[in-house]
């Protein structure tokens, strides 16, 4: 537990998922035991999927996750992982390389596309009417939620997230101590999240016995 009261809810006492012994797992994969590969997949699949999706988006996600596991498993089987205890670091390195390779591919294909067609430089995803409508609706919802929170909370969120001002600057300009700032920010985020959820819930109306249907928000 910490003295400032902020980190308490974050750096809490929830145990991290029990970790398998990496050396044992690596040895199983080296021997090509199916349960070793299964375990590797079970432990890392959600994290790898989350990381790749966050960096590259949902397109071709299954293929990318699959490729990553193949690379990791084959590398282990070839004995390229010299320190089994560093398995997590190794998986991270492979995932980051996958991301970097994909970004490089995107740049290259965009350049080739540009060479072929001078009129087509880049796809503006904003021009898709459905996506644009969803984005507009989300923006309007965010505006409404921001308007509904206390002005000081709103100011903290805007300074911190939009203008990316450092904590020290926000504290100085708003006359807050470091602890006050962290408490207010924590409260503002909770309030913002709670109001956002409430507003989304209001948009849900019963449709059938156990189904809910989303209806467009007016105004």
């Amino acid at each position: 537990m910490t003295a400032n009261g902020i980190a308490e809810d974050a750096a809490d006492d929830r145990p991290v998922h029990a970790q398998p012994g990496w050396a044992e797992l690596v040895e199983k994969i080296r021997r090509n035991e199916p349960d070793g590969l299964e375990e590797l997949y079970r432990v890392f699949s959600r994290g790898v999927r989350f990381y790749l999706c966050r960096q590259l988006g949902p397109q071709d996600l299954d293929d990318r996750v699959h490729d990553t596991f193949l690379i990791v498993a084959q590398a282990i089987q070839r004995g390229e992982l010299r320190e089994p205890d560093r398995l997590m670091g190794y998986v991270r390195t492979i995932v980051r390389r996958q991301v970097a390779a994909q970004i490089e591919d995107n740049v290259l294909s965009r350049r080739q596309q540009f060479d072929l067609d001078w009129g087509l430089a880049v796809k503006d995803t904003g021009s898709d009417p459905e996506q644009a409508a969803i984005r507009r609706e989300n923006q309007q919802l965010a505006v409404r939620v921001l308007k509904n929170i206390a002005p000081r909370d709103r100011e903290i969120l805007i300074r911190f997230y939009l203008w990316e001002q450092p904590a020290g600057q926000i504290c100085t300009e708003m006359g807050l101590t470091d602890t006050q700032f962290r408490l207010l920010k924590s409260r503002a985020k909770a309030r913002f999240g709670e109001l956002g959820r409430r507003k989304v819930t209001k948009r849900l109306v019963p449709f059938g016995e156990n189904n809910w249907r989303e209806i467009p928000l007016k105004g």
Partner: protein
Amino acid sequence: MVFVLLKEGTALQFADDRHAADEVMERYSMDRLAGQELAEFEEHLLVCEPCQDRLAREDSIRCRVRDGAAILLPRRAEVLWQWPKWQRLVWALGLVAAGVLIFAGSQWQSLRPFAAPRAVILLRATRGTENPTLAAAPTDRAFILMLDLSGLQPFSEYGIEIVDSAGKSAFQSKARPQNDRLQTILTRGLPAGTYFVRLYSPALELLREYPLIVRGV
């Protein structure tokens, strides 16, 4: 397994069976973790579902606040600008007078205005889920371009070039990185169109390219 992440010499991160602190989560979400801190956090993230969920929530809040505030703030500025001239003048004079009085009676430091800076356009390599549209800047208006350097080989200085859709150079500059970011100001803005922001090493090797749309607000 023990993770210790250090910030300015202080151990602030989880040990043994703890999760990442909110502050670390926020910094990661804003691409402000680097080096050993970044590596250790990402390794933890790969196997920790609660932290993945917390990060997703953090990303969502950041994204929504940015989206909402970006609309809310200009709207207020526009409303103010639409007032009749004499009303604006009266308000301006009133505010100036009030400002002088307050300034005389208190510390200046605590009264610095909550003024909006220039538009800041943050360019990231790729961020699929949280950034469904391309980075967009306002037409013919000054803006600050901020480039995310995460994952790049560090140099003391980088070259920045902006080319239009025909590949014609529209802007060139050099800048020194700070906190894994590179910042440059386009004082005259750019005309509407599609651009590519190119990042070069000091040896003029192309390191990264970011698409940028410039359009009317």
